[in-house]
């Protein structure tokens, strides 16, 4: 049976932003559709409308000519629309089977048979009776997919499904999706990764700033054409110059361990590496493999043994972040809104978070506001932060501008080493380019970088050396020229 899903003139307005501006689209089963766009382009809003999470201000949704009233996620389920979100909605401590039956009113036994059948058919080997906690990200995603398949959906929406998967898991996912499509399930695939679109999809709809900019067949497109549509401008590609080979060691980590009391954190085991001046060490990995813990150990938020970190011939393992900054280290954490900056505070107040003795922000315990403001103005102009009002609360800066402010705050003191964690996460291409250029520039000035990132392309572009973190252990350190994204993928999955 053919399925036809039609989105007709959908508009959703948030204060200060039109998330969906009169979007109309039509999908037919038998094909895999890509919904492509940058972060903030409006694709998530659109799929949330399709899955009943958000109610549009205007517009209608038709499934096989029937007008759907999607007022809640259960309405979407009733109308055979299944959705797998980017962040898993699973109960970690319940078993796989319990997670699957939680929103079903079918009999346990018959449901179990049905699930077994689905798993056999699509080759999803998962133990139903172990807690979800013990599953890999790829397996958790399969559980989410099975949860949709139980209901025999006509439409299956996948929101950025590969952000937590290894290359191998991604290929498996693509095979399954193709199989679903052949069986008549209409698949809508949301992503901002162009390679995946080219590999998987038949048709592609591109969104930009809430508007639908194009609908076309994949065979008429290539990566460059799609990228330009997505961004709306021609992208210049940045290339890193080959690094000057320096043997002047800046930081050395020796036998560093961290054991956490929190079962949801990853323990770090026997970390050893060193970074020379002017070098960028990239640390790849799937999120949740100890990156956050590694960042905290390097920044001093987690204190370790004094001798485990040697920086510029000083042992600093037992120092806190502020003390480490005095040795000319700088840190840019992953979470811009909850850690690196405080959205409710003004720009210049956020600048004062990076406080050096020599910056004189605070004299004898008193705030030296003029000094902080002067410094803030310099950051704003030196790092292209798009505002001239340092009294503005930083929540009104876009993600890109906020990140420029943070990187600027960390770099304006010309540190010898910058440690950054997913510095371009969630940013638009313009801001990503700017950050990448800045990072390359500081390497050129013979300063070093430790770049912890889940974005393999970014790592390959910026790093001189690359290592992969998996379950709290680092792989051996490789020269970036010898590494391919496939090889990284294998290491990220835990193989040797």
């Amino acid at each position, binding site marked *: 049976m053919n399925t036809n899903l039609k989105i007709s003139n959908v508009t959703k307005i948030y*204060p*200060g932003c039109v998330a969906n501006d009169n979007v109309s689209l039509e999908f037919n089963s038998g094909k895999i559709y890509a919904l492509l766009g940058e972060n903030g382009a409006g694709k998530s809003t659109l799929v949330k409308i399709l899955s009943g999470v958000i109610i549009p201000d205007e517009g209608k949704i038709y499934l096989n000519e029937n007008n759907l009233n999607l007022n809640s996620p259960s309405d979407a389920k009733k109308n055979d629309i299944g959705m797998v979100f980017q962040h898993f909605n699973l109960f970690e401590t319940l078993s796989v089977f319990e997670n699957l039956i939680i929103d079903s009113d079918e009999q346990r036994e018959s449901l179990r048979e049905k699930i077994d059948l689905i798993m056999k058919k699509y080759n999803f080997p998962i133990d139903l009776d172990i807690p979800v906690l013990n599953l890999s990200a790829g397996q958790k995603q399969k559980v989410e997919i099975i949860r949709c398949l139980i209901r025999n959906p006509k439409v299956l929406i996948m929101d950025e499904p590969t952000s937590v998967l290894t290359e191998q898991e991604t290929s498996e996912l693509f095979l399954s999706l193709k199989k679903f499509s052949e069986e008549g399930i209409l698949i809508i695939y949301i992503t901002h990764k162009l390679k995946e679109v080219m590999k998987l999809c038949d048709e592609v709809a591109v969104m930009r700033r809430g508007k639908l900019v194009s609908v076309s067949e994949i065979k008429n497109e290539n990566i460059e054409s799609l990228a330009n549509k997505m961004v709306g401008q021609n992208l210049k590609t940045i290339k890193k110059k080959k690094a000057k080979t320096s043997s002047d060691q800046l930081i050395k980590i020796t036998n560093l361990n961290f054991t956490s009391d929190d079962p949801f954190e990853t323990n770090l085991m026997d970390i050893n590496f060193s970074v020379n001046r002017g070098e960028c060490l990239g640390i790849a990995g799937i999120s949740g493999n100890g990156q956050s813990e590694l960042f905290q150990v390097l*920044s*001093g*938020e987690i204190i370790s043994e004094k001798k485990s970190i040697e920086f510029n011939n000083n042992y600093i393992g037992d120092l*806190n*972040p*502020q*003390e*480490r*900054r005095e040795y000319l280290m700088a*840190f840019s*954490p992953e*979470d811009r809104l*909850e*850690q*690196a*900056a*405080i959205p*409710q*505070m003004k720009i210049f*107040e956020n600048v*004062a*978070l*990076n*406080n050096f003795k020599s910056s004189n922000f*605070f004299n004898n*315990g*008193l*705030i030296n506001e003029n000094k902080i403001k002067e410094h803030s103005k310099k950051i704003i102009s030196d790092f292209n932060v798009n505002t001239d009002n340092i009294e503005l*609360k930083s*929540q*009104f800066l876009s993600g890109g501008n906020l990140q420029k402010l943070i990187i600027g705050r960390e770099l304006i003191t010309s540190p010898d080493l910058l440690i950054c964690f997913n510095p371009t996460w969630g940013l638009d291409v313009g801001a990503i380019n700017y950050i990448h250029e800045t990072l390359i520039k500081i390497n050129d000035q013979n300063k070093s970088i430790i770049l912890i990132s889940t974005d393999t392309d970014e790592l390959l572009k910026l790093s001189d050396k690359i290592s992969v973190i998996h379950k709290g252990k680092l792989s051996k350190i490789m020269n970036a020229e010898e590494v391919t994204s496939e090889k990284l993928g294998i290491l990220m999955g835990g193989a040797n």
Partner: protein
Amino acid sequence: MIKIVKRDQPSKAIFFFTPVLAIFLTLVAGGLIFFILGFKPFEALKFFFIIPIADKYGFSELLLKATPLCLIAIGLSFCFKSNNWNIGAEGQLTFGAIVSGGVALLFYEQEGFYILPIVILAGAIGGMLYASIPAILKTYFNTNEILVSLMLVYVSKLILDYLVVGPWSNPEGFNFPETRQFSDSAKLPLLFEGLRIHAGIFLALAAVVISWFVFYKTYLGFQMKVSGFSLKTAKYAGYKGKKMIILVFLISGACAGLAGVGEITGPIGQLHREISPDYGFTAIIVAFLGRLHPVGIIFASLVVAITYLGAETAQIFMQIPKYTGQVFQGMILFFLLASDYLLFFKIKFIGSKK
């Protein structure tokens, strides 16, 4: 049709308007309660809120009640601003009163200008000591400061009970559970002949000025602000979290202890069982009603102080229990929390659709 819309940013005006709205709603609800009880609402509210402060004596009583509330609330705002939930100011007040009362009893029948400063200092130290317990347990043993500080309230009240019926009870007191009267040198001077308002009010005013300066002009205030918004950011910035926790608890304890001193060396003049009508708990309401802002706290302490006086007047003239005062305090907090919804959402009235 009414639509609720999320605000982009809570405006400054709304921030200070919601406490006023909360007070207004409290009056409306209070009037309704009086009506149900069979009183004329406006008359009852007049008994409650206007009659008590209509004369010089009443106004002095208002300031007398507002002084400890303001002092404690200022101290608490150091804790609350930095994400430390000290609920035990009542205990710190009691313990401060015990220590300063003990010192005052040591100087029984002695005169000297030096006595009062020592007694005041002893109260502050007592409050600090008592507040340091939840602070140290929190920093070194990860205990929950809400539970610890709250439970210590009852411990201190029992200690006070034991002292006033046992070792410290007045030998000539016919076994009443109270100590001797303190000597005049151990008492805060009265400001006006015939009124009970005493010099303790200057302690409160000093606390207001000092706290304003610390909050908005010092590095400590900045660190407190950052920690209040995000402990993760405070850690990332490298602030010494443990030191700050202990410091804000000590400040808060000192303020509560001073409030205790003010009570026993002011209107009471001795230690007995009931030295505080739960000022330490009510001050939590005052701190939030005043938006943790020193000037806001002054106004809030005056408003809440009226509920104490009003309850007494209502008891005398309308024969309703004085606990009505607590009902009003509860309603203020309730409506404040409810109207804080307006900080983040606005109500839009839109015409019916075409």
